């Protein structure tokens, strides 16, 4: 066994800093780093720990667990294929930011203590914000500042929670926590904010679609899934997560149905998919946790594939609204086909990756006899097909003929999409390798006749509903209000009003004090006292000089007497 001493996440972060050194260095790093990272992750066995004493604590910058290794593996894979997608078109700033972002996400998945986790957590917020900045337009900048605010708030809650937890228990170990005091609730809140849980879900759909075509591909993968990972480790079986997850599932569907921007539809569906995982974590049985972890793995791949196809369309057409798009299958057939494979996978169509992972979560709800949860999950599966599985490809590639005849996506983009499409189908047909690296032994068999029939009925009739209801789904040039209204409108209006009021109050105040001071001065000038030297206006310099003289005098007195 080789000695793994250097955290694989830091490797990507330091490598990212070398990317501006030149085109060749950059391209070498894009392909070399993720591969090296994968090798490092798999070079050490489960249970391997590196400790580092720090301020009286034993940090564990590396702790290999089955769960952490699963997430670190898919993150490395994501950054490799994302790099292939992006390396010709994206700026160096975006690529280095994306690699540092991915590295910090991997750092979180392999950290054994809460302090290491927190450090990587914050680097993640910075890296992702830089990825949004790399789009270099006004809308992206504004969205990124809102994004950063939400994540700094989340980080703050997490830090307070960790500090309180360490004081309470004396332990910094990152392990299953019980919700005993406010500290653990704050840690949970910090994790949930990054997962896109209510009420602060709006940041995903606000910020991700403002990034560049490749930027949103990177963004979709890491933040929310790192949050899923931390919830899996720290709060498995917390019942509170079930209603939160179900809310997220339906929030994603409903808002995606209302949305016109193609990448924002996909951003809402991230919340929807993470909702399935959060519900699974709340259910907390071995099968549910396996399902949540496996679903995160599959989700990263098909969601990246979907955003890649949307990114290729944006790159070729410069359009992002469904109302401007349509009919693109004619000149971008490969992008359309690969995008549809991603759409089928997100809908858990049989023989795609979603089918073999998501159904584990629903099955564990049935096994626990949670009838409402099971019914909600079944309806939601149909709803996913409705809002992402059909809506996205239909409005972008078919719908009406928009008249646009953009060329097919660049070759590197097609290659990246093909790799992920192969994964989507490969894992669906042959899930055993994925099942083998899950944290618990898998006893689940997805391909039964009953399950296949049920899923085909559910999805195809959801498809029927889509086409029957198509007149009601006509896209409009609108956005939808969300919780961010409170900080983008209400807080802004309140702050403006308050600052205007205080400005006028302070004007009145300073005018009156100035007036009083002036009348005092004129009154003073008239008296005889004003004739003396001490009553003059002194320059500040002379005051400083005299204070120096006095202090020097004290010093001399102190030394000699």
């Amino acid at each position, binding site marked *: 066994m080789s000695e793994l001493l250097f955290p694989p996440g830091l490797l990507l972060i330091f490598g990212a800093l070398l990317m501006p050194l030149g085109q060749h260095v950059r391209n070498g790093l894009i392909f070399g780093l993720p591969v090296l990272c994968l090798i490092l992750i798999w070079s050490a066995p489960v249970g391997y720990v590196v400790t580092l004493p720090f301020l009286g604590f034993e940090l564990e910058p590396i702790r290999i667990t089955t769960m952490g290794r699963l997430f670190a593996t898919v993150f490395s894979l994501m950054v490799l294929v994302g790099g292939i997608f992006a390396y010709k078109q994206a700026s160096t700033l975006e690529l280095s930011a994306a690699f540092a972002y991915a590295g910090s996400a991997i750092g979180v998945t392999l950290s054994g203590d809460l302090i290491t986790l927190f450090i990587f957590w914050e680097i993640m917020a910075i890296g992702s914000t830089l990825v949004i900045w790399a789009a*270099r*337009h006004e809308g992206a900048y504004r969205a990124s500042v809102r994004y950063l605010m939400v994540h700094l708030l989340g980080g703050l809650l997490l830090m307070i929670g960790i500090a309180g937890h360490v004081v309470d228990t004396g332990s910094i170990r990152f392990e299953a926590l019980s919700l005993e005091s406010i500290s653990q609730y704050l840690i949970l809140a910090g994790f949930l904010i990054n997962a896109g849980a209510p009420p602060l879900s709006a940041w995903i759909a606000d910020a991700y679609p403002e990034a560049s075509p490749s930027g949103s591909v990177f963004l979709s993968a890491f933040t929310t899934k790192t949050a899923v990972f931390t919830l899996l480790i720290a709060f498995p079986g917390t019942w509170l997560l079930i209603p939160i997850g179900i809310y997220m599932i339906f929030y994603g569907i409903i808002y995606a149905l209302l949305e016109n921007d193609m990448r924002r539809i996909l951003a809402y569906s991230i919340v929807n998919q993470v909702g399935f995982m959060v519900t699974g974590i709340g259910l907390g049985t071995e099968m549910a946790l396996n399902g949540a972890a496996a679903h995160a793995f599959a989700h990263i791949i098909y969601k990246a594939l979907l955003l890649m196809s949307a990114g290729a369309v944006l790159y070729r057409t410069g359009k992002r609204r469904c109302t401007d798009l349509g009919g693109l299958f004619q000149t971008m057939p490969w992008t359309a086909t690969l995008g549809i494979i991603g759409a089928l996978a997100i809908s858990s169509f049989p023989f795609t990756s979603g089918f073999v992972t998501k159904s584990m979560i629903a099955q564990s709800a049935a096994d626990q006899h949670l009838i409402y949860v099971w019914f909600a999950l079944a309806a939601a599966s149909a709803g996913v097909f409705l809002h992402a599985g059909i809506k996205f490809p239909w409005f972008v590639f078919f719908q009406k003929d928009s008249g646009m005849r953009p060329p097919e996506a660049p070759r590197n983009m097609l290659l990246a999409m093909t790799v992920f499409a192969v994964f989507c189908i490969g894992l669906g047909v042959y899930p055993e390798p994925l099942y083998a690296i899950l944290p618990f032994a898998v006893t689940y068999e997805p391909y039964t006749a009953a399950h296949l029939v049920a899923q085909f009925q559910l999805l195809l009739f959801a498809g029927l509903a889509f086409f029957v209801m198509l007149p009601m789904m006509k896209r409009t040039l609108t*956005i939808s209000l969300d919780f961010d209204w409170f900080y983008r409108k209400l807080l802004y209006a309140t702050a403006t009003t308050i600052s205007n009021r205080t400005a006028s109050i302070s004007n009145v105040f300073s005018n009156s004090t100035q007036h009083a001071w002036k009348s005092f001065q004129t009154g003073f000038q008239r008296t005889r006292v004003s004739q003396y030297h001490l009553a003059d206006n002194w320059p500040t310099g002379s005051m400083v000089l005299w204070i120096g003289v006095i202090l020097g005098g004290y010093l001399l007195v102190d030394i000699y007497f």
Partner: protein
Amino acid sequence: MSEQTQDQNRRWLLRKENIRTLWVIFIAVLIVTVIAGLFVHQHVHFGIEDSFGFFAWYGFITCVGMVVFAKILGIFLKRPEDYYDTNSDKGSNKDAIS
């Protein structure tokens, strides 16, 4: 150019008669899945899953419900695109500086 020849020049998927064919195939597939449901036995947890075509009608009804619910919610939630920011770049990335 008459409408018919224009229709002939279009892609296979965009021609009217083919869309009708696709609908026929789609409905046939739907019927097949419902019939197939008669021959498999769902593992019953709650009693209702084994009723006739349960997943078909449940999927259809819940989806119609979600679309209608979204439509109603849209009355209250939808705002013009420049609601938050009149200068924002919602339509395209034409302002991108590279």
